[in-house]
């Protein structure tokens, strides 16, 4: 078993003919992901790289190819519409890579995603990879290796850094999930932690957080109560200047300044081993796994 992506995944790429979409489709195909279709309105009927049929709409792609998952590389102002289209077409997993989507668009589309029973990952995220099985998104396959550590992260490249350390040290991954750093995202830390906790192929979890908000504190609380597998964590932004305050409302709503110190304290209180540097992940994971 693996988390969110597996051998039954039949992927449609929304925005397949764009710069990023075409580049990463090739990468995904090369990695062995079952990319069954692409969608670019106006380019229906074309074939991408001689093998992937392109459709005007996701609904057409689903009818023709039985796609069950989507990855989205469309421009920011069209991306929420692409998410709605994927959800309406009945896809179970929707991974949105696009960065810069207006937050109001996400606020409006999330209820639709939930109504349709789809799982959205992102937006503004690197996607996910189950090493050796498939990848959906942009995490470089070359830095990953199959194994039994699950990773969940709010950031993109910092995830790669940590995965790279793990792989070089011979510690493979069950699944790596980048959930994205936007204010409104489809899947949060707790969703992924729950999946790892119940995944028989995951023995330990790496969780990469950042300053701002209270998601890490909530996740720590969840871990303390529900996760029995060892967790190693990181918080980026210890030296970052305090963010620009968002009026009084920002302070009222969070009741927290979201500093790295607060989050690290929450991690420690929940029994999470905290890395000081990204490279520390290897030592801590091995410690916690008793290797």
């Amino acid at each position, binding site marked *: 078993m693996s988390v969110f992506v597996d051998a039954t995944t039949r992927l449609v790429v929304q925005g397949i003919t764009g710069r990023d979409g075409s580049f990463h489709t090739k990468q995904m195909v090369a990695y062995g992901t079952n990319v069954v279709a692409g969608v670019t309105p106006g380019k229906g009927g074309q074939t991408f790289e001689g093998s992937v049929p392109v459709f005007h709409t996701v609904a057409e792609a689903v009818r023709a190819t039985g796609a069950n998952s989507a990855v989205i590389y469309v421009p920011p102002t069209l991306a929420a519409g692409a998410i709605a289209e994927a959800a309406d077409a009945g896809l179970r997993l929707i991974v949105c890579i696009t960065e810069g989507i207006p937050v109001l668009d996400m606020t409006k589309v999330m209820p639709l995603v939930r109504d349709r029973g789809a799982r959205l990952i992102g937006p503004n995220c690197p996607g996910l990879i189950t090493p050796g099985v498939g990848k959906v998104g942009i995490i470089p396959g070359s830095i990953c290796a199959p194994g039994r550590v699950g990773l969940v992260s709010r950031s*993109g490249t910092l995830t790669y850094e940590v995965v790279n350390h793990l792989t070089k040290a011979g510690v493979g991954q069950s699944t790596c999930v980048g959930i994205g750093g936007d204010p409104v995202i489809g899947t949060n830390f707790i969703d992924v932690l729950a999946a790892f906790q119940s995944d028989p192929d995951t023995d330990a979890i790496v969780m990469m957080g950042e300053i701002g908000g209270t998601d890490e504190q909530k996740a720590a609380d969840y871990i303390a109560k529900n996760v029995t597998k060892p967790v190693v964590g990181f918080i980026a932004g210890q030296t970052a200047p305090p963010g620009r305050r968002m009026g009084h409302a920002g302070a009222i709503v969070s009741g927290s300044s979201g500093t790295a110190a607060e989050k690290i304290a929450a991690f420690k209180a929940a029994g999470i081993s905290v890395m000081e540097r990204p490279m520390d992940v290897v030592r801590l994971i091995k410690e916690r796994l008793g290797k």
Partner: protein
Amino acid sequence: MNLHEYQARELLKAAGIPMAEGGVAATPEEAARLAEHIGQTVVVKAQVHAGGRGKAGGVKLAKNPAEARDQASRILGMTIKGLVVQKVLVVPAADIVSECYLGLIMDRESQRPLLMVSPAGGVDIEEVAAKTPEKIHRLAVDPRYGLLPHQALGLALTLYRNFDQVRAAAKIMGQLYQAFMENGGSLAEINPLATTPDGRVVALDAKFVVDDNELDRRADLAALRDESAEAPSEVAARRASLTFIKLDGNVGCVVNGAGLAMATMDLVKYYGGEPANFLDIGGSSNPEKVVNALRIITSDPAVKVILFNIFGGITRTDDVANGIVTATRQFKVDLPIVIRLTGTNEREAVTILQGVGMQALNDMDDAVKRAVALAKEAK
């Protein structure tokens, strides 16, 4: 994007919200005319995007038009936290019976616009939130249905006893919600929502933050940007689609991805250095961005070394290498450059750099240690 107070006032006024009178002035004469029209003691407020305007002398009372002219001439041109005051807002020093708070913010947890109201408005609202949270009433608005009349009424009943005021406040909440949704708000605040001696409910002060992601599709909102009220380096960074925040150290950082950028700064500090900035060149990079990044960083005289930390994913490391090469051709870079590159198209990148005699490291810790060492040598 933060709007100026006067811009936020205009935006809320356009939504129908009753605002205390007043206006914006760019000259002392305009300020005097506004004070004369208002006909009572006024407050003259500097319009810059910086906290602590009052302490810096940017907010002053004026009892008559002549005083308003004097205060405005003192405040206009003043520098507050590095920003030159170009405009002042002139508003009546209001006679207030009660102060309520209305705020709308995009809430991560509920994933909805969160409306917060309190009968204990004014400058101490955060203290109220911390010490007597029961005085703040919250409602996460379902955007599918909007702010429903009974929801606004229920919240307004927590603010006022007089039912005309309850109705007025409920109406203002609806208008604030509309303004927020129609103008891509991240934050909208009215604080205080004041009751005047004759019982009217008016907004005395307004704050509005537009989601930066709206600006591409909303030229009208983008036009509200006042670059004269921002730090020049941040303006340059934004124009180059870079996220840049200046800090006090000497290790200039160029990184792809906000998380890795923060982790790089943390690692600089860990190894005994001080980062000069946060700079994220973003996801889909191109060489031009790298050129602009170098231009911005090298314009800071405190910087002693430039550290690239690029982990290619959607960013192609060859794009970055090309950018570095192009930059060094376009302008002289006297500082040492430490480059860490790995990931997408790494081999091509290394070849490009070697072509101009530059080296690339593969490990982040090695690169950071080296940059910190070079910064120390340069002192």
